């Protein structure tokens, strides 16, 4: 086993995903403890240019038509071969629609331990501990990084993506494994429909979560949004229930917003939601659970039943508008 830390670079439609830089930043810290190098694993077709701003010591690049866009089957074959041969100390993947699809397969194929939901790695001398955020952000679980190649699935939030950006690194082409047996094929991408709302451009967002309880109550948030010249957004459970369309979704597989005001009503603050809203300037969270993780990321918190608050709030906003 080498002491290198590998990072699987994620990209979609030609753009490197932010989690890749977050992981490079984490890998840098880990490599200082292990004494190895930071190695970026890049899979693509004519994608060398994506290596240009990676803060890595080395880039191992596999070029193949089947790897142009993400394909879990093709990635599994290619990465199994590469990681099996390189035997690094750790391999970092994103807790994303890409990393989460392949980590389990690598663990089984290569018979390697796997830790998921890792937010950060703490270093104590030469030993490292992986700190995972589970149970919707309510519990942290620590595991010791074993002395064998370990697969780590990372969530955002523990490292600044800017720290994973750099001048690039020497790109080393790696022999392409046989990808003829790939069982999955990307037929097409379906772009999101031009929506009634463009959350990324909205300065004032009133977001509702599971705490809104039912479809009818969304009107309350809409009333408030209208008064404030803002729009209504939602966390996953609200969209999954069909109460609001996916164009309103904030978080993983939804939008990442940078609002001036993000008012979170009845949102617990699961990591999947938080990653899409922490870029906002002022975050006000209203939740009846005093231990809701949303209070750890909000600027202001109100621990009350949102239904007790919303009527007086709407009244006072109306009064303030005159």
């Amino acid at each position, binding site marked *: 086993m080498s002491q290198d830390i590998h990072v699987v670079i994620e990209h*979609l439609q030609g753009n490197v995903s932010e989690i890749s830089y977050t992981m490079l930043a984490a890998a840098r810290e880990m490599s200082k403890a292990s004494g190895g190098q930071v190695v970026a694993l890049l899979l693509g077709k004519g994608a060398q240019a994506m290596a240009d701003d990676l803060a890595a010591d080395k880039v191992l690049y596999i070029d193949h038509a089947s790897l142009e*866009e993400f394909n879990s089957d093709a990635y599994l074959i290619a990465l199994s071969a590469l990681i099996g041969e390189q035997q690094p100390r750790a391999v970092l993947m994103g807790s994303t629609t890409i990393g*989460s699809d392949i980590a*389990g*397969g690598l663990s089984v194929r290569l018979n390697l331990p796997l830790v998921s939901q890792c937010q950060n790695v703490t270093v104590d001398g030469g030993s490292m501990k992986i700190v995972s955020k*589970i149970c919707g952000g309510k519990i942290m679980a620590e595991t010791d990084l074993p002395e064998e190649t370990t697969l780590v699935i990372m969530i955002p939030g523990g490292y600044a993506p800017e720290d994973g950006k750099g001048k690039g690194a020497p790109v080393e082409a790696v022999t392409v494994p046989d990808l003829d047996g790939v069982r999955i094929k990307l037929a097409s991408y379906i772009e999101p429909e031009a929506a009634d709302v463009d959350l990324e451009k909205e300065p004032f967002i009133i977001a509702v979560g599971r705490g809104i309880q039912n479809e009818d109550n969304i009107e309350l948030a809409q009333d408030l949004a209208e008064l404030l010249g803002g729009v209504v957004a939602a966390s996953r459970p609200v969209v999954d229930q069909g109460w609001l369309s996916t164009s309103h979704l904030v978080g993983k597989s939804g939008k990442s917003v940078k609002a001036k005001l993000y008012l979170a009503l009845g949102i617990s603050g699961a990591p999947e939601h938080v990653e899409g809203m922490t870029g906002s300037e002022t975050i006000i969270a209203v939740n009846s659970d005093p231990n809701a993780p949303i209070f*750890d990321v909000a600027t202001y918190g109100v621990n009350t039943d949102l239904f007790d608050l919303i009527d007086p709030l709407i009244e006072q906003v109306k009064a303030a508008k005159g």
Partner: protein
Amino acid sequence: MNIIVIAGLVPDLVEELEIDSSGTTLDTTWLRMIINEFDDHAIEQAVLLKERSGAHVTVLAVDQEGIDEVLYTAAAKGADRLIKLTGDFETGVNSHALARVFAAAVKELSPDLIMTGVQAHTNIDGTVGSLVAALLDMPYIGYVAGASPGDGKAVVKKEYPGGLIGELETSLPAVLGVQASEEPPRYVAVSKVRQAMKSASIEEQAAAELDAGGGLAVSRMFRPEAAGRATMIEGSEDEIASRLVELFKEVGAL
């Protein structure tokens, strides 16, 4: 079309979670367990496919307190066969152990399609679906928001960030990690679940031996230490509302 859905329970996050005296796992004494919501979506997707073009739906789960109700509810929604794998699953079973148990059971059922929730919030060693797929050497697609299986292959909608959807074609059998069913999971009345308890039966099968290899032991569990906690606004509802109005003015929303 033979569809298997793998379903399970997770702690209800609305309730307070306690860490037990060992400091390495959740205290299960007062834990309220509910169906993993993504598994609920997987059941719904299977029932939708059955209604659309005919399928035989088997729901597979491991024995945990409360799982019978989940299985009977699935039957009330339209599942044809309920299988409960017996063994000691009450504490500390990781994704790798569950996946081995499920993979062994699935193999016997020769399915065309296996669906399960894309994740469970308790997962700390990867997701059960992705591991089951690898153990059975089947293709895996996660974050699935729709599927149309046909003859030997399926067209699957996979979610990507920003609302982008990938339309993928996979050979069958395959494992899908479901994020959201095409329609929201249906509600079934308690009376219908009671009816299912009478008409449907749960088959019990002894689970394969538990093997947690591939997951790591948790050395410490703790509550998150917030880097910066919110400034809490307190007072009567009216007082809070007026403070919020001030804040709305400060950010220019009023």
